[in-house]
């Protein structure tokens, strides 16, 4: 456990003018980009990662986490005004947010979403701060055999819970492992799949890959799908709204809904593979089912907004629990955060608290500040976002593509990077088209160095004796759990798809 000086020093590190600037900028960017349907938080993260190379580690990570936090607020804007969530996590917000807007209370709905979002986010950050260090201490007791088993479990959970098929999830994992193994092997420094290129000795860089696969492929797909009739359409229809104030009494009336949603969001966020969309939907569903008057849901009931927004925002902090304690990112946003850490020479995991305790507490301080910034920016600017995102898609998508190309050039310093981005985008498009989940691929790609080191150590420890796993009860339990999950999750997926 870090000492008090590390904790206080780390928290104070967040309070520099530079960090404050990037936190406010990140929150603002996150809110705007997530508000535009078709873009979203992940794309915002992928686009800005190249621009963080010049920043120091804490500033870069604080910037990225602020974008994630801003995204949870921004996604609700178009969900409420247009009935189309700007980002997937705000899908459940449309159920009551949009009906409320249709009643002429769009501003009020946006304020409900902002306040409950901040509550969920801040509460889960506090849980993260309280539990992360003790959990990391426990995680430190794990050896390479346990780490291998844990990662296998993480891959199983992610493959089983995201996408349409567990088999496709595992294929995406295999693809990620292979691409992640490009470069010098960690044991002997022998080049693998480098095709004689020294530039590939360090492996395939995450930034260009993520930018191509996560952002550019989606933007080009949206451009490709556009029809002549869509031209000039605004991405958003701004509806008139009056009587926008939300009183403390109105907020407190839904306190139990918000607390339950926070618990749901935090638990789901801590499980790799699930995410904000699941949390929002589940929380909304539970709240509706347990309500005495479920018929009021879907008609503009603030409880629906409280349930969805609190839960989907609570995921952001909780997602960092497996990331910081075990080094396992729970979703694409967290995976990109790992990428930012790695780019700056920091490896997330249980040792992070021992080796970079000050950085971790700096991150916690930045997260708390980002909540404040999120509230302030949202309070003053949500109405403005409604205007900003009414820009037509015919301007938004081409401009976003130019920004991505610029970012790519800045990362690599050469035009070859843009070509790599186009190739990555083509692979990403193929993955989307054939239904192979991105998150499984990216998580596997990012975890490959850590997993490979653990495998190398485990093989040396085992020395040919594979029964050694029986003498490691935690590893054995994790492996059994993986097998149980494969059996449990696969038929469910089949039934779901067949039923659809």
């Amino acid at each position, binding site marked *: 456990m870090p000492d008090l000086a590390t904790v206080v020093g780390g928290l104070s590190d967040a309070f520099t003018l530079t960090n404050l600037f990037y936190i406010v900028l990140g929150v603002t960017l996150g809110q705007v980009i997530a508000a535009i349907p078709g873009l979203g938080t992940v794309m915002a993260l992928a686009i800005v990662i190249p621009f963080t190379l*010049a920043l120091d580690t804490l500033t870069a990570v604080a910037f990225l986490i602020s974008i994630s936090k801003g995204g949870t607020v921004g996604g609700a804007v178009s969900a409420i005004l247009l009935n189309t969530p700007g980002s997937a996590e705000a899908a459940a917000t449309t159920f009551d947010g949009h009906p409320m807007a249709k009643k002429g209370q769009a501003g009020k709905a946006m304020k409900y979403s902002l306040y409950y979002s901040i509550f969920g986010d801040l509460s889960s950050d506090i849980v993260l701060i309280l539990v992360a260090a003790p959990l990391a201490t426990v995680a430190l007791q794990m050896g390479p055999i346990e780490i291998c088993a844990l990662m296998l479990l993480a891959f199983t959970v992610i493959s089983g819970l995201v996408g349409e*098929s567990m*088999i*496709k999830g*595992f*294929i995406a*994992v*295999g*693809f990620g*492992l*292979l691409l992640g*193994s490009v470069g010098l*092997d960690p044991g*002997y420094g*022998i*080049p*693998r*799949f*480098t*095709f004689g290129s020294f530039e590939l000795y360090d492996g395939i860089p995450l930034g260009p890959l993520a930018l191509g696969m996560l952002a550019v492929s989606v933007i*080009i*797909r949206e*451009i*490709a*799908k*556009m*029809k002549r009739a*869509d*031209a*000039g359409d605004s991405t958003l229809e701004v509806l008139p709204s009056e009587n926008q104030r939300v009183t403390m009494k109105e907020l407190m009336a839904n306190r139990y809904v918000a607390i339950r949603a926070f618990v749901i969001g935090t638990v789901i966020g801590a499980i790799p593979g699930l995410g904000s969309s699941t949390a929002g939907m589940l929380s909304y569903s539970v709240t509706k089912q347990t309500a005495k008057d479920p018929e009021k849901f879907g008609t503009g009931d603030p409880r629906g907004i409280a349930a969805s927004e609190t839960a989907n925002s609570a995921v952001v902090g909780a997602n960092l629990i497996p990331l910081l304690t075990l080094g396992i990112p729970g979703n694409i946003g967290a995976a990109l955060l790992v990428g930012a850490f790695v780019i700056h020479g920091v490896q997330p995991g249980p040792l992070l608290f021992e080796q970079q305790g000050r950085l971790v507490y700096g991150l916690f301080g930045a997260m708390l500040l980002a909540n404040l910034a999120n509230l302030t920016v949202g309070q003053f600017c949500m109405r403005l976002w409604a205007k900003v995102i009414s820009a*037509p898609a*015919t*301007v938004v*998508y*081409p*401009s976003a*593509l*130019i*920004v991505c*190309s*610029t970012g790519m*050039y*800045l990362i690599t*310093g050469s*035009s070859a990077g*843009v070509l790599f*981005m186009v190739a990555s*985008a*083509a692979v990403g*498009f193929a993955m989307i*088209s*054939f*239904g192979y989940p991105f998150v499984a691929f990216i998580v596997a790609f990012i975890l*490959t160095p850590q997993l*490979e080191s653990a*495998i*190398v150590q485990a*093989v*040396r420890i085992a020395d040919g004796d594979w029964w050694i796993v029986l003498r490691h009860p935690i590893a054995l339990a994790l492996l059994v759990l993986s097998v149980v999950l494969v059996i449990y999750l696969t038929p469910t997926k089949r039934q779901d798809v*067949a039923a659809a």
Partner: protein
Amino acid sequence: MNAGSFAGGVVTLDRISGLLVALAGLWLLTYGIDAHVKVTGFESPSPQLFPRIGAWVLLVFGIAQVVLTRTATALPTRRVLGRYALVSVMLIGMVWIMEHFGFVIGAMVMLGGLMLVVYERRPLWLIVTVVAVPLSIWLIFEVLLERPLP
């Protein structure tokens, strides 16, 4: 594709993609890894171990997808595929223009082309966007942040 396609024996896109994945895994195991990861044989564990794990995952789950698939993916339409290819080619063209004429000209040409591809025909929107976006990016990165652009 409808639910009838789920019946065993029907060739679906998912089965085809599963077959391609399995063949990729097989190629890696029989040739690709040996050709691109040179080892002396004395390393323990071998640097080929991890790529082989990945290749086995592709082979096993590719076959599983061919045999057990219960999903039916539909490819995007030919129009969408064509337009996707067109935009990709335009991006590659932009690289060439940027290398020869600089970032601002390349980005302006690309942006104008893209806006026409998405059927934007309003002259004011076209002119303002084509001029303002590349110039703003250039001012921010090249002038303010001093990060070199092509």
